[in-house]
């Protein structure tokens, strides 16, 4: 999946830049890409859709009689896909708007120059884009193609799902001001996102934290394809982003489903009343459950009687930042090493935060 971003940008969009003259196939496509072939692709798309619908309708409707663990694995994985897919699409659409339709630099030029201030502002950007975490990844990619630095993007990704009106409202509905959970979540998320952003910024060459294929896409994005129509570029961006995101989403969902079937939850709930273990247990649960940040407060509310408030805060701060599905999506853009670093840092910060809430309460 890595190279598809790169391929798509070069091959599929008949871009009149230097590379086109070296690639006879592209030139031929550009000349030939008239009505006829386009209609052919339309027909193919319609046939595909019809075939998928046909397959769905004529598949046996009966019940399962096989092992129920396997059934639950599929149900759980499918539920993650069905739940995240609309948000991923929304994120991709926003990303396309940022990449193609917004005047170049409209967003970025207004950001403060000083890196620390810029990250502060970016961590509040989630207020403008109330998408939950799975939609933020494509959006962050779009912003990076438009010139956002690596550390900026990390700050945005970590902060936006928490500092976001929907999340704040649902957390308030679930917990009110009880035990300082809401305040700890919002402030903690803000501080941790900026802290981790600062650490990433201190990396000697932050670009090495990006996957080679995404670096390449950034390089290409530098040369403006001004002569290609916006519709075409939007379609190209949509195709590229779905090629990068959907395989990652599907694989991430399958892993999340498999771990859910395998990990026993009662193991976690027996740790609820220890100040440190309750934090670690809910951190692990947040990682495994991969639930959307907009509603995770309602989910963890039911654990409120079993776990100390620090554990709840850990769940509410760590979950939106890092979980199985999110790591799979982030892997499209950042190297595995970078993700290990970021995950470890965030986990450490959240443990400190949760422990602080437990001991302070």
């Amino acid at each position: 999946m890595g190279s598809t971003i790169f391929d798509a940008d070069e091959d599929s969009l008949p871009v009149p830049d230097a590379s086109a003259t070296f690639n006879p196939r592209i030139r031929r496509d550009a000349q030939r890409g008239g009505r006829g072939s386009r209609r052919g692709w339309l027909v193919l798309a319609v046939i595909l859709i019809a075939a998928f619908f046909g397959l769905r309708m004529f598949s046996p409707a009966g019940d399962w009689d096989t092992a129920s663990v396997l059934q639950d694995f599929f149900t759980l994985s499918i539920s993650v896909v069905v739940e995240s897919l609309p948000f991923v699409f929304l994120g991709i659409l926003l990303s396309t708007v940022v990449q193609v339709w917004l005047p170049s630099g409209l967003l970025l030029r207004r950001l403060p120059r000083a890196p620390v201030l810029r990250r502060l502002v970016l961590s509040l950007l989630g207020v403008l884009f109330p998408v939950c975490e799975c939609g933020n990844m494509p959006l962050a990619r779009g912003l990076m193609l438009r010139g956002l630095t690596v550390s900026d993007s990390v700050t945005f990704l970590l902060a936006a799902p928490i500092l976001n009106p929907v999340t704040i409202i649902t957390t308030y509905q679930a917990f009110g001001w009880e035990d300082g959970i809401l305040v700890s979540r919002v402030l903690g998320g803000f501080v941790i996102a900026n802290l981790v952003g600062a650490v990433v910024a201190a990396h000697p060459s932050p670009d090495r934290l990006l996957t080679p294929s995404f670096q390449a896409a950034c390089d290409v994005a530098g040369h403006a394809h001004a002569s290609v129509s916006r519709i075409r570029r939007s379609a190209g961006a949509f195709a590229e982003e779905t090629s990068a995101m959907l395989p990652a989403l599907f694989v991430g969902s399958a892993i999340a489903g498999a771990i859910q079937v395998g990990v026993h939850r009662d193991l976690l709930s027996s740790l609820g009343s220890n100040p440190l273990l309750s934090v670690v247990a809910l951190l692990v649960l947040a990682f495994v459950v991969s639930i959307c940040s907009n509603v995770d407060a309602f989910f963890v509310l039911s654990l409120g009687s079993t776990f100390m408030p620090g554990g709840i805060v850990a769940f509410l701060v760590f979950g939106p930042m890092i979980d199985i599905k999110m790591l799979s999506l982030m892997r499209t853009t950042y190297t595995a090493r970078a993700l290990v670093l970021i995950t470890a840092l965030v986990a450490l910060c959240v443990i400190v935060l949760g422990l602080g809430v437990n001991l302070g309460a």
Partner: protein
Amino acid sequence: MGLILSLIGIVATVWLGFTGRLGLYIHPRYTVFTLIMALLAGVIAVIAFTVVPGKDDEHGHDDAPPPTRRGRVLRRGKTAGLVAIVVVAMFALLVLPPSTLSAATAQERTVNAAAPAPNSSSIDSILTGADTSTFTVKDWSLYLRMGASDDFLASHPAEVVGFVSADPDDPQNVFYVTRFTITCCAVDATPIGLAVYLPGWSDRYHEGDWVSVNGSIVANPSSSSAEPFAIAPSQVSPVAEPPEPYVY
């Protein structure tokens, strides 16, 4: 590839939506949003199909140095991986019959492990005049935990529908009428249940069977079960799985 995967996801979502089975996977509050995004993405995917032709069969990138042997193997592996993802996605989303979570997951997640926290002291006054015949497993479970009085319970028999799962502490005599409750999607499903005291129940019912249980709620006669209350059933009858198997 992305477009094909998109279409698979979109077709599956739309089909689930229009056959009313999206509720097996996600909370109903997302249904409208999910369907709108699926239809919108479907239109865009079709447009993208016509504008971005041949993207998947042209892997060449002529600026790059000619691929090494290792590069070719990597690329082939990557393509094979993508094809595998598409095939599995088609199988999971388009071929398998949609299903709910099974009783195995209820066991694994421990029924009533995470009960809603009590937040009212005068529960009987809330319940006065309530129509208990509409109470679900979730309602009963909540009110029992909030301390509904014995008088109230004696005059209000329960009539609930759920699937059977054994009480791990006393599997011979007690089973739970169980439902999953959902806040977001099936991933966060948490089983809740009402204990039913019926010695020898496992001769007649299997775990996972859907049943309707009638009877009054009494102090649990079982000595080893952790549940303080249980239904003393006057009637247990098998029923079909309801179209909305989860409670919210």
